[in-house]
C-alpha cells in the first residue's frame, strides 16, 4: 500500500493497484463523522461504439445504454440493493455522465460493510427480460421530466449545436424510442466490456481504519475471477473544429427566453501538463471575465441583459471539451451578440501581474473550499487521475502558472467558428 502525505493541505492518501487491475484510493479523515465511497468505471454515454471484450467486430449500442445499465445494477434476482444499504444505515446513489458511471454511498457507521456491499453489487450483475422491460416505464418518466426542464434542454441544445459527430451530443438517458429497443443482452455486453476491474477505480474517504479497509478490499477481489482484460477499443468519429450549428432555437413554453453561448474547445487528446494548464486557465479566465463583478459580467448586468440565473461552466475531458455561458434574458439576440463580441475581444486582452495573481488566489481558495466536501474530493480525484493528474498537487500547479501561460491561452481561446448560440423560447403566436 502506498502512502503519500500532502502537508500543505493536511491530507494523507493511501493507494494500491490490485492484482486484478482495480485501482483503490483510501483517504482517512478521522475528524469527519461521515464516510463516502465511490466505485467508478471509465465508461459513460459517449462510449457507444466499441469492440466488446473477447470479440473482434465493432458494434454500436442503442442510445442510453450506460444509463440504463446504471439503473439495473441496483436490482438483483431476489432483492433491491437500496434496501441492503438501507439496512446498514447508508444512502446509496449513482450517476451516469458523458464519460463515467459511478456508484456511491455515504454513511456514518459500518463503513467497511458498506464498501463491501458497494463492490459486491456492482460486480454481480443480474439482468432479466422482465426487469429490463419494467425499467423502461421508470426511465421514460425520467426522460419526460428532463423534457420539461428548460435548463436541461438549454444545456443539451447547446451541446448539440456545438458537436457535429461526437457522441457527447447524444442524450445521456437516451430517448423514449431508443430505450425501447434495449435488451438484457445489450446490458451484459456493455457490462462485461466496461466493468472490468482494470477499467474501474474505488475511492473511499472519511472516518474508517485504513489497514483493515485495504485488507478487506484485497481479499474480496482475490475471491472473484475476471476474464483477461484486453485493450479497450472505443471508436469515436472525426470531429471537425467548427460547431455544428452557429444558431439553434428550441421552442418550449417558457416565461422568459434562455440563451446559452457554447465555446467548443479546439484541440483534445492533450498531454497531461497541457491538459491541466488548459483546464485551470479555462476556468480561471471564464471566472475572471464572467463571475459576478467581472468586467464582462458588469457590462451585461448594466445593459440589463442578464439576471441572477446567469451562469458559466467549463468541462474538459479526454477527447472533447466545451464551455458555456448562459442566462435567462428578455433580449436573447442582444445577449448573444454582446457575449460574442466580448469573447472575440479577448484575443488582444492584456492581463497584468496583479490581476493574474488575484485570479490564482481565487482559484486556490475555491479549491480549498470545495475540499470541505468528501464527494468533491473523491469525484475530482478520480476525474483527474484518469488523466494522470493528482488533485492534491493542483494548488502548487496553480501557484506555478505564469502570466505568459495565461496570455498564450487567451490568444488561442476563442475563434468565431467554434462559437454556438442556443436559444430556448416560447413558440410564436
Amino acid at each position, binding site marked *: 500500500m502506498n502512502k503519500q502525505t500532502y502537508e500543505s493541505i493536511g491530507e494523507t492518501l493511501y493507494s494500491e493497484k490490485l492484482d486484478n487491475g482495480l485501482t483503490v484510493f483510501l483517504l482517512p479523515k478521522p475528524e469527519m463523522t461521515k464516510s463516502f465511497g465511490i466505485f467508478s468505471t471509465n465508461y459513460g454515454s459517449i462510449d457507444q461504439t466499441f469492440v466488446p471484450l473477447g470479440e473482434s467486430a465493432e458494434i454500436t449500442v442503442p442510445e442510453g445504454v450506460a444509463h440504463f445499465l446504471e439503473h439495473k445494477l441496483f436490482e438483483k434476482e431476489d432483492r433491491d440493493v437500496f434496501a441492503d444499504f438501507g439496512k446498514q444505515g447508508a444512502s446509496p446513489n449513482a450517476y451516469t455522465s458523458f464519460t463515467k458511471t459511478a456508484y456511491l454511498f455515504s454513511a456514518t457507521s459500518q463503513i467497511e460493510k458498506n464498501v463491501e456491499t458497494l463492490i459486491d453489487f456492482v460486480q454481480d450483475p443480474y439482468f432479466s427480460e422482465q426487469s429490463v422491460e419494467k425499467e423502461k416505464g421508470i426511465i421514460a418518466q425520467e426522460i419526460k421530466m428532463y423534457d420539461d426542464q428548460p435548463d436541461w434542454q438549454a444545456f443539451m441544445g447547446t451541446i448539440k449545436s456545438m458537436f457535429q459527430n461526437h457522441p457527447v451530443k447524444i442524450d445521456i438517458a437516451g430517448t423514449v424510442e431508443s430505450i425501447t429497443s434495449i435488451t438484457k443482452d445489450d446490458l451484459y455486453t456493455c457490462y462485461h466490456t466496461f466493468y472490468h476491474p482494470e477499467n474501474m477505480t474505488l475511492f473511499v474517504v472519511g472516518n474508517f481504519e485504513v489497514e483493515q479497509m485495504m485488507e478487506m478490499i484485497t481479499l474480496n477481489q482475490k475471491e472473484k475471477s475476471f476474464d483477461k482484460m484486453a485493450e479497450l477499443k472505443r471508436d469515436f468519429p472525426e470531429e471537425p473544429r467548427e460547431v455544428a450549428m452557429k444558431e439553434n432555437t428550441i421552442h418550449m413554453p417558457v416565461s422568459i427566453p434562455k440563451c446559452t453561448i457554447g465555446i467548443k474547445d479546439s484541440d483534445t487528446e492533450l498531454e497531461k501538463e497541457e491538459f491541466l494548464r488548459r483546464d485551470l486557465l479555462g476556468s480561471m479566465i471564464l471566472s475572471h471575465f464572467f463571475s459576478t463583478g467581472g468586467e464582462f459580467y458588469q457590462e451585461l448586468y448594466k445593459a440589463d441583459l442578464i439576471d441572477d440565473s446567469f451562469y458559466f461552466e467549463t468541462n474538459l475531458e479526454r477527447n472533447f471539451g466545451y464551455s458555456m455561458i448562459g442566462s435567462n434574458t428578455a433580449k436573447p439576440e442582444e445577449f448573444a451578440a454582446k457575449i460574442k463580441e466580448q469573447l472575440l475581444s479577448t484575443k488582444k486582452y492584456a492581463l497584468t501581474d496583479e490581476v493574474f495573481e488575484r485570479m490564482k488566489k481565487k482559484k486556490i*481558495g475555491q479549491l480549498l473550499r470545495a475540499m470541505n466536501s468528501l464527494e468533491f474530493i473523491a469525484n475530482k480525484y478520480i476525474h483527474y487521475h484518469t488523466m494522470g493528474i493528482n488533485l492534491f498537487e493542483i494548488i502548487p500547479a496553480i501557484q506555478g502558472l505564469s502570466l505568459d501561460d495565461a496570455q498564450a491561452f487567451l490568444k488561442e481561446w476563442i475563434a468565431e467558428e467554434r462559437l454556438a448560440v442556443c436559444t430556448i423560447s416560447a413558440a410564436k403566436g
Partner: protein
Amino acid sequence: MDTIQEKRLDEQGLKLHFIQSKKFKTITFVAKIKAKLDKETITKRALLPYILKQGTKTYPDRSALQLKLDDLYGAVLTADGGKKGENHIITIRLEFANEKFIPDASNVMDEAIRLFSEVLFHPNAGKNGFDDAVFKREVGTLKQKINAIQDDKMSYANMRLIDEMCKEEAYQLHVHGYEEDLNSLMNEDLYNYYQQMLKQDEMDIYVLGDFVEEKVKHIIKDTMQRTVQQGTSTVNAVTKKPVSEQQEIIEKQQVQQAKLHIGYRTNTTYQDDAYFALQVFNGLFGGFPSSKLFINVREKNSLAYYASSRLESHKGLLFVFSGIAPDDFEKARDIIRLQVQAMKDGDFTEQELNETKDLIINQLKETMDHPQGLIEILYQQVIGKRLMTPTELLDGIQNVTKEEVVQVAGKVEEDTVYLLTSEGGEQGE
C-alpha cells in the same frame, strides 16, 4: 469525531454563536435576520439580500466588492431570503479559506470579518436610499425571478399547492414577493425598511471553523454593533388550521410529465415531543429510496421516476411529490393514499423502523459535516424556540418507538391534492 459545541453569547445587540471545528478548510460566517411573514414586508425582504450583495460603502459596486472577495482567496458571499414556518429569514453568508492552509497568507480572517460587517451594516446608500441604478436593476431581476418560477414545474407545482392549501394563512406568501408590490416600491421606503430591520429584527450570527475565539470576538466588537429596539418582530403563534374539507385542484399546461403533489397537515411541529416520531414517520413513508412511496409508486408500479415526501417542521406540514404520466393520476393518487393508511395502521416492521432511524441519523450527521448544513440545524432551535443540541436531536430519533410513529401518523390529515397535467390530447412541442 468532533462533538459539536455551540457557544452562545449576547453582545452588542447580536446573538453570537461560536462553533469550533477542525473538520473544514474554511471559516464560515452566517447572519440570520428573522421577522414574521407579512404581505406588507415580504417583497421588500425578498429584494434586500440582492441589493446588499451589490456593494458597500468602501466597495461601492459589485466589481470593487468582488475584487476584494477574490483578494481574500476567493471568499464567497451569498445572500437570500427564505420561509421557515411563519417566519421570513434573510441569510447572509461569507465563507473563506482558513489562512492556516495557505502559505504566506495572513490577515484573511480579520479582513473577511470586516467585509462581512460592511455588507450587513454599511451598504452603498445615501440619505434617500440605496444606489438608484442598483435598486432599479435588482427590482428588474427579482421580477424575472418571480416569473421564472413557472418554468420550473416542480417548484411551480409546489408553490401552487401551498397557494391552495394555505389560502388564509401567512405561510402561503411567496418567498420572492409580488410583482405588483415591486412596481409601487420606492427606493427610499426600502431603505427605511432596511434601517428598521437592523433595529428590530432578531439577528443571529454564527461563526464556524478552526479559529481563535478571542480574536474573532475582538474584531466583531470593533466592527459590528446595533441598538436593538423592541419592534413588531415577535412572531405570532403559528396558525393551526383544521382540515375542514379535502380539496382536489387540477391545472393544465403544456407539459410532458404531470406533477402530482399532495399536502397534509401533520398537527405536530418542532416544539412538540412527538417531533422525533414525525421525522421517523416521514422516513418510513417517503424520505428515502427504501420508503413506502418509492417502493410502491416507483419500483412496484413503474409509475414515476421520483416519488418522495418532505416535512415542513415549524408549520406542521407534509408534502408528497411525484412526477407521473398524465394518464396515471388516479392510480398514483390512490397508491399514495394507501401508503398513508398503511402508516396509520402500523404496517411496518421493527426492523424497518430501526433501519429508518439509522438512515435519518446518518443523514443528520452528514448534514453536520457540512458548514452550512450544521448552521441550518443549529438555527432550527431559534426558529422553533426550543433548545436542542445535535446530540439531543440524534438521541431523540434513536429513542422513537413504533407506537409513537403510529400515534403521530394518526394525526396526519390529507388537505389538498394538486395536479399539474398536460393539456388534453395535446403533446407539447
